[in-house]
C-alpha cells in the first residue's frame, strides 16, 4: 500500500486544481503511533498533509452524510459499500462524490500491538508486510497479518465496489476465511452461557456512544436513546438500559452493516461491539442472501418485500 499515499495526493491536487471538487476528505498523520486523523483539504497547497497507511481504519463515509459540497473521499472496500448504502438511503447524491478507491489489504489493530509491547511504543512504521515497532532502546518487528483488525482478517470485500478512480491494482479477495466463526461460537452456547457472555461483554460500557457516532449508518437526527416523548431507553448505567442500547442499535444496522469495524475501533473500553452486528449480518446473508452496499441497483431486504421472504415465524 506504499504507493497509495502518493497517488492519493496526486488525485487530490488534480481534483482541487481542476475545481471539480470543493473538498477532499482523507487522513492526516496523527499525534500518536498508529493513529491518523480524518481531515478535509480545500486547497491544493494543503494536500501534502494527506497520508495513507495501515492505520486508516476509520470509516470516512461517516463524514459524508448531509454535506452539500462536492467531495472527493478516499474509500476502502468497506467504506465504498457504506457510500453505496448512503446513496440508496438518500443521505448523499452520487453526483456529489468523487470516490478515490483504495484496494485495501487490511488495517492494523493498534490494541493488538500495544498488548504485545505495552504503552512505551514510540513509533510504528511500515515496510511492506512488516511493521517496525520502535521501543525505548530497541526495535521489534511484526508481521502485519498477525495484528490486523478482526474484521479485516476475515474480509472478503477488500476492493471498492464503487469508485471514480483507483489508487492501485485491485487486490485478490480472500476466499478461505470464516467470517462468522465468532457468531457460531456464541450460537453454540447454552442460554446461561450466552447470558453470562453478553453480561461480561457489555460490563465496561460507559454509554459514550463512540460506537454509534463512528458508524456511518447511525445518522438519525435524534437517536432513539435521546428521545424523550416517550423515553425508550434510560440513560443511566442500569445494565438493562445498556443492553437495550446495544441490541437495538445492532437491529437498526441489520441488513445495512458492512462490518467496517469502525465501532469496535472507536470503543474506548475495548468492547467487541461487532458481536451483535456480525450475527445480524449472518442472518441477513442466510435469510435473504443479502450483503449490504454491494450494488446501487437493489434495495436492502428490510426495505422491500419479496414473495419468497422467509416467513416461518408466522405460525
Amino acid at each position: 500500500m506504499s504507493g497509495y499515499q502518493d497517488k492519493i495526493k496526486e488525485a487530490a491536487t488534480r481534483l482541487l486544481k481542476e475545481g471539480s471538487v470543493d473538498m477532499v476528505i482523507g487522513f492526516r498523520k496523527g499525534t500518536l503511533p498508529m493513529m491518523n486523523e480524518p481531515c478535509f483539504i480545500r486547497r491544493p497547497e494543503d494536500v501534502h498533509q494527506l497520508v495513507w497507511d495501515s492505520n486508516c481504519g476509520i470509516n470516512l463515509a461517516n463524514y459524508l452524510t448531509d454535506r452539500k459540497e462536492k467531495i472527493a473521499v478516499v474509500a476502502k472496500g468497506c467504506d465504498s459499500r457504506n457510500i453505496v448504502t448512503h446513496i440508496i438511503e438518500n443521505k448523499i447524491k452520487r453526483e456529489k462524490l468523487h470516490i478515490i478507491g483504495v484496494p485495501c489489504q487490511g488495517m492494523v489493530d493498534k490494541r493488538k500491538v500495544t498488548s504485545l509491547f505495552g504503552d512505551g511504543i514510540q513509533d510504528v512504521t511500515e515496510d511492506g508486510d512488516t511493521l517496525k515497532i520502535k521501543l525505548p532502546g530497541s526495535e521489534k518487528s511484526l508481521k502485519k497479518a498477525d495484528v490486523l483488525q478482526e474484521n479485516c482478517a476475515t474480509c472478503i470485500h477488500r476492493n471498492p465496489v464503487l469508485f471514480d478512480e483507483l489508487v492501485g491494482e485491485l487486490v485478490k479477495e480472500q476466499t478461505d476465511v470464516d467470517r462468522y466463526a465468532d457468531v457460531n461460537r456464541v450460537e453454540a452456547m447454552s442460554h446461561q452461557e450466552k447470558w453470562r457472555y453478553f453480561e461480561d461483554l457489555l460490563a465496561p460500557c460507559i454509554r459514550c456512544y463512540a460506537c454509534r457516532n463512528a458508524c456511518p449508518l447511525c445518522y438519525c437526527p435524534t437517536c432513539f436513546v435521546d428521545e424523550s416523548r416517550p423515553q425508550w431507553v434510560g440513560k443511566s448505567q442500569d445494565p438493562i438500559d445498556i443492553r437495550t442500547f446495544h441490541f437495538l442499535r445492532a437491529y437498526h444496522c441489520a441488513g445495512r452493516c458492512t462490518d467496517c469495524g469502525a465501532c469496535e475501533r472507536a470503543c474506548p473500553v475495548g468492547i467487541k461491539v461487532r458481536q451483535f452486528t456480525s450475527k445480524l449480518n449472518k442472518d441477513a446473508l442466510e435469510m435473504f442472501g443479502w450483503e449490504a452496499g454491494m450494488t446501487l441497483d437493489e434495495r436492502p431486504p428490510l426495505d422491500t418485500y419479496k414473495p419468497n421472504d422467509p416467513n416461518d415465524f408466522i405460525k
Partner: protein
Amino acid sequence: MKVLTIDKKEWAAGIKKAKSSYQVFGPVKEKEWHCFKALGKDEQPDMTYANTRLSPKFLVQPQTEPMFTYTLDESRPDHHILKEVEKDAGPKAVIGIRPCDAAAFLLVKRNFDAPQYQDPYWLKAYSAMTFVGFACNDPCSTCFCTSAGCGPFHEAGLDVLLVDTGDRFLAKNLTDKGKAFLAAAGWKAQADDAGKIDALKQAAESRIGSRVSTDKLKAKETTQIYDAPFWEDTAFSCINCGTCTYSCPTCWCFDIQDENRGNSGVRLRNWDSCMFPLFTMHGTGHNPRGAKMQRVRQRFMHKLKYYVDKYDNGIQCVGCGRCIRLCPVNIDIRKVCNQMNDYDPAACVCPA
C-alpha cells in the same frame, strides 16, 4: 511532614490491616487495562500499573447516582414529595491514585463547593476519601502534567504520597487523614533517606516529554479565540462521542432525570457530555450549540479559557493524557491548547 519507609514485604499486610478501618480501593488489572475497584478481602492494589484507563472520578461522582426517591401512589401521605437517599458515608481509602488524578479532584471541587451553593453528594463523598497517592517514576509519553499545573510527584489533593524506590515505598505524610491511614495500616518505620524523593522527582519531571503552552491564555480576549478560524479544521474529525469527557478526571457535567417503575421512582443524575447534541437543546428546538464545531469549540474553550478566567488558577486539565489516548479520531488537546495559546488575530493565519 513525616516520611515513613515501607518494605514491600510489609506492604500487603498493611493494606489488609487498613481494610478493617476503611473501605479500600485500588488499581486492579481487568483484561488489558487497569481500573479502580473496591478491593476484596484478599485483593491487593496492583502497584505496577501506569494509570487506569478511565479516571477515578467515579469514586466521588458515580456515573449514575440516585439523589431522591419518591412515590406516585396518591394513597400515601408523602406522595410526590422527594425523599433524600441515604448514602454510605463510611471512610474510604484510595490507594495508588496518581497525583494528576488527585489534583483533578481539587479542580472539580471549585465547581461543587461554591460560595453560594454546595453539592452535598459530591462533597460528602469527597470528604470521606483518604487519597494515598503514588508518584510516577516513569511518566507516559502522553503525560503533560508539568505544564498543566501539577506533576508526577505533585502533592496537592493527596493525603499521603508513596514513592517507589525499588524494594521499598517511601510514604510522605501530608495531612491528618494521611496520618490516620498510615497508623491504621500499621506502618511506622521512619525513613532516613527521605531526600531520595527529590532526586526521583527531578528525574521523573525531566522524563516528561510532552508540554503545552498556557502562558498567554488568560490575557487573550474570549471572543477573539472564540471566533478564530482554526476551529472548523480542529472539529472536523470529531464524532461527538463522550469518550474524552467521560475519561477526563476534570470533567464533571451531569444530567438529572426521573426514572419511574410502577408507582415509585428515583431522581438520579448521570454523567453527561457537552459533546452530545442534546446537551444544550431547548424545549423550543433552538440549540445554541447545534453544530458539531460549536460543541468541540465549547469543550476546549471551557477547559482552556473559561475556567482560566473564572478561577484564575490555571487550566481545567491535569495533563493525564487519557483523552489523547482514547479519542477514536486522535484529536489532541495539546495541539489545540497550543493553537489557542498562540492564536494572534492580527497575524496572517493559515489554516492548520
